[in-house]
């Protein structure tokens, strides 16, 4: 019989080895899959790397894909630190993008130094409110935030669809359901060949790191996340902390939506998130909610997505193969957490021994 017992003595080295081993196992597992598809796994992995980092253009593309992941991961990590399982990033990105688009469509002629901050503010507020609604219900009535935030995603998606097919439909598009493109003033400037979102992302990583580790607010979040009762014991306003933290979390995701809409798409569409809200859950978890680690993990994930696109062309295998790789890595890494936290031992299953 297998016996599990909790362990707390897992050293950093050991747990790194376990996680590393998990990634290798995942790669090996996917190799079999690639072989079934009739390709050499080594050359597929090799060209994935080449596809993600092979040329300046590819690197730019990879980084471009990593920006929404980084910002959304930061937002999610903030909520997760509070043990608030916010899986509503997807919806928060959409509502944020809607807020930004509202400004962009209504004030297209404002100079960009006014319009862009305005869009950013609108996106933060919209995304924040989208997050704060479930947070309020959780704080007040202990509703299940996982289900609530997830459902909010669909509500946001339907709103966005409604806007795209209804009030915000571009009259110039001859009936094609699309939202008009942003004016040049509403588009993020390009810095070093990449929209300025990367600067925002880097700044946010630094700010988040400082916020969590060196401010009183950040400290409160860690306390309440560590033990709600201890938070109450210390006299903290636990409900308030939950609500405003999730507002910030949603706000960050909202900002991510604004950057995508303004920097990449230059318009809004139902495909705005590209699944970033879900992928970011993975990346923030894999980076153990640590702000400085998030960009690294996100760039790797973006590389996997970018490389996946490349192998699609190079080997004629579906991009989904890369997604399988992503999923498998996640599966193994999460599975390995179990071995970090529990010790498995095998004991003999003797049901009865006759008396001697």
């Amino acid at each position, binding site marked *: 019989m297998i016996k599990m017992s909790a362990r707390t003595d897992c050293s950093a080295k050991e747990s790194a080895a376990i996680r590393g081993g998990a990634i290798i196992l995942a790669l090996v597992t996917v190799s079999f899959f690639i072989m079934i598809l009739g390709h050499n796994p080594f050359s597929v992995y090799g060209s994935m790397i080449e596809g993600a980092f092979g040329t300046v253009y590819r690197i730019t593309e990879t980084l471009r894909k990593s920006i929404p992941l980084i910002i959304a991961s930061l937002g999610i990590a903030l909520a997760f630190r509070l043990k608030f399982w916010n899986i509503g990033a997807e919806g928060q990105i959409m509502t944020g993008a809607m807020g930004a688009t509202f400004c962009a469509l209504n004030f297209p002629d404002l100079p960009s130094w006014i319009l862009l901050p305005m869009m950013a503010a609108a996106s933060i507020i919209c995304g924040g409110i989208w997050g704060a609604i479930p947070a309020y219900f959780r704080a007040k009535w202990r509703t299940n935030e996982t289900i609530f935030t997830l459902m909010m995603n669909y509500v946001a998606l339907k709103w966005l669809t409604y806007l795209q097919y209804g009030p915000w439909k571009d009259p110039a598009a001859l009936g094609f359901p699309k939202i008009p493109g942003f004016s040049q003033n509403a588009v993020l400037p390009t810095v070093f060949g990449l929209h300025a979102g990367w600067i925002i992302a880097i700044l946010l990583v630094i700010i988040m790191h400082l916020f969590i580790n060196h401010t009183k607010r950040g400290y409160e979040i860690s306390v309440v996340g560590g033990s709600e009762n201890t938070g109450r014991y210390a006299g903290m306003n636990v409900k308030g902390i939950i609500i405003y933290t999730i507002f910030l979390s949603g706000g960050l995701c909202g900002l991510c939506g604004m950057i995508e809409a303004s920097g990449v798409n230059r318009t809004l569409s139902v495909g705005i998130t590209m699944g970033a809200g879900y992928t970011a859950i993975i990346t923030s978890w894999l980076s153990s909610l640590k702000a400085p680690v998030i960009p690294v993990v996100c760039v790797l994930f973006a590389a996997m997505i970018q490389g996946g696109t490349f192998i699609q062309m190079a080997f004629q295998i579906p991009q989904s193969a890369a997604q399988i790789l992503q999923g498998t890595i996640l599966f193994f890494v999460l599975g390995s957490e179990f071995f970090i936290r529990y010790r498995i031992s095998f004991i003999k299953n003797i049901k*009865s021994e006759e008396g001697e």
Partner: protein
Amino acid sequence: MSSNFKAFCSEFKAFCFEFKALSSNFKAFCFEFKVPGYDFKAFCFKFKAFRIRGASSGGKLPSAKEIFAPFGGGALSLSKCAGASPGAMCQTAPACAVTNENNQSRGRAINGNEAIKMVNISKSFGDVKANDNISFSVNYGEIYALLGENGAGKSTLVNMLSGIYTPDSGDIYVHGKRLRLASPADSISSGIGMIHQHFKLVNVMTAMENIAIGQEHGFLFKKIKVKDKIEDICSRYGFRLEPEKLVRDMSVGEKQTVEILKVLYRGADILILDEPTAVLTPQETERLFDILVRMKEQGCAIIIITHKLHEVMEISDRVSVLRRGEVAGTVNTHETSPMELTSMMVGKKVTLSIERPPVKSDEIMLEVKDLSLVDRDGIKKLDSVSFGVRGGEILGVAGVAGSGQKELCESIQGLERRKRGEILFKGDNISHLTPRAIFEKGLRISFIPEDRLGMGLVPTMDLVDNVILKDYYLQKSIFLDREPARQRAEHIVKMLNVHTPSIYHPVNKLSGGNIQKVLLGREIDSRPDFLVTAYPTRGLDIGSAHLIYDELNRQKERGVGILYVGEDLNILLSLCDRIMVMFEGRIIGTVDAATATKEEIGLMMLGEISGGVKSND
């Protein structure tokens, strides 16, 4: 165990939503598969057809048992670390042949053999010896009581019988055979039925379904057969039960009946009841005792864990008293007296001398008037509690666990919002203030809660971050300055001799005693006016405990009023000035620690003397 379970749950939750993310990727994958012309649906369909063919060629559908068989081991050990969830437990529980096994054992019962014998059982958790060389045996047709204070090792002992723990050493004989009970399933199949204090029932199912859960292995639920069998058991032992009633609509007593029926249905003839009367009304208790007596007459062996003395006297045939993990004595109930049992329970010798400086002040520092508290479930936790504590006085609070001590402490600290009554601190009514409001008034009430890691400390944070917990918000800047906290953490480590690799070590990786020292150190370091401590030395070795008693005495000499909730009567008697005894949310009496005896307090704790000896203040 429960904290493990919690951790596991949160991990599992986390895993679940990761899985969600994965599944969306999977959806995308399916979609992509369709694009190159591969029809995933067709594949699914084919797969289904294949399965049906496979099953029908086998001649019969695989039963639920076969499907679950491969998971059996895993689910079971999971239930072990997860506090034995009923579902998992039942899934793997083999169908105890009620008819055969029952008849066999009943046959033996007539012989008056030993149903259970435990020989030299020892079990330690870390440094704590929960059970030390315990031996006892229970005969068929006997009600055997295990009596002892909290933490005496009663639950550990029976948990080894129910397969939740395995002993470090020693042998267990069941029905005369030496067994190794490696899991609850082993225990159930050997005829041991455990009725836990906290019921393990599925609320949305009927009594019948709860009883039959995991027991019937056919594809269909044979309702009539199950019902007949339940009614048979009911009439044999005199239970009253509506099999179709939903568990959530049941009273506590009815739920307990279902629990008992569940183990009887599985063919248990050795019953273990963990504090069965703790949640029952007197009438329900009486009915339970009637049933237990009838079961005893039918030849069952019954072990009942309790700390209520009068129940032991009323129902048991023999009783073993446990004290600090050892058997303090085993006697025939009709040959003993409550007095003798009490003195066995609390022990004779005082371990080490503790100083007791005299109380200097006469001024009442904290006064509680008519404090009542009804909890969320409508159960009265505190019932018109009134008392006063002087500055420089240690008021001890004795009582069996769950007599309202926790609620009292949390009320004083401002954590309980549902209370009624007054709490006066130096004349100010603070009963409706939050902890921070009390703090901001300049009143320093320090609280050392019972569950240190659940409240009071943040387990995953290091010493420095935990030390700063209460006053971080007084800092002016939005940034947190950890330097003063670092110095204080170092001071606490030195002052109380905390064993830690560094002050940046997470507190949950420290040992229990050191965790307690960190908490006590922080609270004392804030120079409190009043100190509320709940079991501050629980789980500590004698040396550390005395360090803490000395520290409490130092605070006392500073003029701090102290409310000391304790469990060791020896300590209460030698450390405190007065001892207040709580029983079922009431104060049953207050005694002067200098003149009171342990027996006196012990009896009061068990609700034996109502009114008690009032101290003259």
